């Protein structure tokens, strides 16, 4: 079980010692303490991130030509969040214990 000392969460590492949760990494802590129980695929998330980035650029180009402002605002915000979301999952694939990236 995790223990909280002065606001810092300590969890048992795989070698039996208690370590700061922020220092967890793959192979150091059990995946039970990760934000998600799997390691997000790097290639898959990178592919989706790139596709959304391309679509975002295409929408910007179409906005420049046709000026559908309201439509563009929705598409822009939506696609930007998708790009950020998948970028977050790419970094999460490096460290599935990172809570900030999980929130993203």
């Amino acid at each position, binding site marked *: 079980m995790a223990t909280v000392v002065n606001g810092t969460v300590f969890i048992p590492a795989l070698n039996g010692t208690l370590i700061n949760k922020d220092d967890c990494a793959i192979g150091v802590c059990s995946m039970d303490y990760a934000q998600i129980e799997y390691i997000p695929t790097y290639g898959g998330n990178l592919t*989706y991130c790139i596709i959304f980035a391309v679509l975002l650029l295409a929408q910007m180009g*179409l906005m420049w030509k046709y000026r*559908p402002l309201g439509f563009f605002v*929705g598409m822009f915000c939506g696609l930007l969040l998708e790009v950020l979301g998948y970028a977050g999952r790419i970094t999460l694939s490096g460290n599935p214990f990172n809570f900030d990236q999980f929130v993203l």
Partner: protein
Amino acid sequence: MCLTIGPAFLTASIYLCLGRIVIVYGQNISRFSPKFYTLTFMVCDFISLLLQAVGGALAATQDANDPSRDGVNIMIAGLAFQVVSLTIFVALSMEFVYRARKARESDLNFDFFNLRKRTMFRVLPYAIAVATITIYIRCVFRVAELKDGFGGELANNQTAFMILEGPMIIIATIALTVCHPGIAFGSAASWAAANWTWKKSNKSDNNHIRMVSQETATPSIAESELNDMKSRA
């Protein structure tokens, strides 16, 4: 979090298109005014966006060991609300499609006669349908995923996520990019023309009057002057 609220913006774009399409076909054949469609769905979308954002923020700040799942539950409420509004959107769109097909050409908005014959404009409703269905699938998946919280079985199934989340939104946005409303309407001007205004009610039934007046209109002063000059020459 980003991935959760992102599609709520995309649905806002989709909702905007319906009002424009209603104007192009003619408001008199529609059950509700384009203003009603746009405003109603914008409000619905804003509510689901707000619930998802607040729920997400709450879930993020809540302790992982906290047994109460307020944050996640609010997120689920937001996603479920999005599913409900998408369902109503599909129902009202289908109803309008039925009315538009049933309507005689003379009942439709004469101003957009040529636009309605454009191939890309005729494809737009299909693109919107594809985008709506894929986003719908994705929202239902996210509700099912979060039902058991972040620790649930489905939330930790990467394959399900990589099929039902990313690709669904990719298909939706590709449909809305390839058949972009700008391309469908052909020009910035015709997209701008198919708009409703805040001030006066657009519920105009004077399409026929306008047609008649254009046919029987007397030449304008400039034209008659031009004719005079020609006859003098």
